[in-house]
């Protein structure tokens, strides 16, 4: 059945609902701009998820965790992590150790994806 699966990438983007996949692995809904298909587009959301997961796992108010992301014209992505005031110390850590650890993991991810990312705690 591999041939059927191959056809999941329709050449024309105008009828995306035609194939119903049981689970959407990589939510293609945001692919508004028709980029060249040769290189996979690095979604900033990917970078966000890592920080979001860590932050939500170490704070008392996970629902207040918010990560905004901006990419400037030079391709530098900035992640802005926002948490409840009482949780700020938790995501920063003693002498900034937790923030530094999050940055270290983010660097690995950025290196793998060949992008530049920085993390700010706001």
């Amino acid at each position, binding site marked *: 059945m591999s041939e059927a699966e191959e056809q999941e990438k329709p050449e024309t983007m105008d009828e995306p609902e035609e194939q119903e996949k049981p689970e959407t692995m990589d939510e293609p809904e945001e692919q508004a701009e028709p980029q060249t298909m040769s290189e996979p587009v690095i979604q900033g959301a990917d970078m966000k998820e890592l920080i979001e997961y860590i932050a939500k796992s*170490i704070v008392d108010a996970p629902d207040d965790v918010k990560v905004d992301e901006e990419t400037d014209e030079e391709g530098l992505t900035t992640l802005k992590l926002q948490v409840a005031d009482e949780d700020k110390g938790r995501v920063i850590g003693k002498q900034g150790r937790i923030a530094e*650890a999050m940055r270290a*993991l983010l660097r*690995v*991810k950025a290196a793998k994806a060949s992008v530049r990312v920085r993390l700010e705690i706001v």
Partner: protein
Amino acid sequence: MNENKTEIAEVAQTILETLLDLMGVPASVNQEHGALVESEVEVPSTITLNVEGDDPGILIGRRGQTLSCLQYLVRIIIGHQEKVWVPIVIDVEGYKQRRCNALQSLAWRIAEQVTQRKEPFALEPMPAFDRRIIHLTLVGHLDVTTESSGEGEARRVVVIPKGLPSD
């Protein structure tokens, strides 16, 4: 190994796997139980999560810094979720085990030298984890004792012959 600890090992493994996945590093995680160091004193047994993947270097980082950040975050997350502090050790392709073995050989070699020359010997400055291995290795030694001196980055282990009048 009690049940609670086994359970925590499972939780730790899941957290680590999630982190690796989110980092975009394809890798598998195996649990190893038991102490990393051979010592005369009883070292509390730890849970070691050993990571194997295509790119161990990127996870270890310069001087093992990325690895220690990964370990630190897993410990913090478990501490927060389970409200217990468990000394989870994260290793990549046996990097720490090899380092540990190398430090143990070094400790034995220096101890022998100190015994023969009957004068103290100061090792290179080392991080806490490494110093601890040296101390633990020589804790039951008949002819030498160890202590740490210096502050911060410059802190180092000094191996001292026993019976030397201290000043």
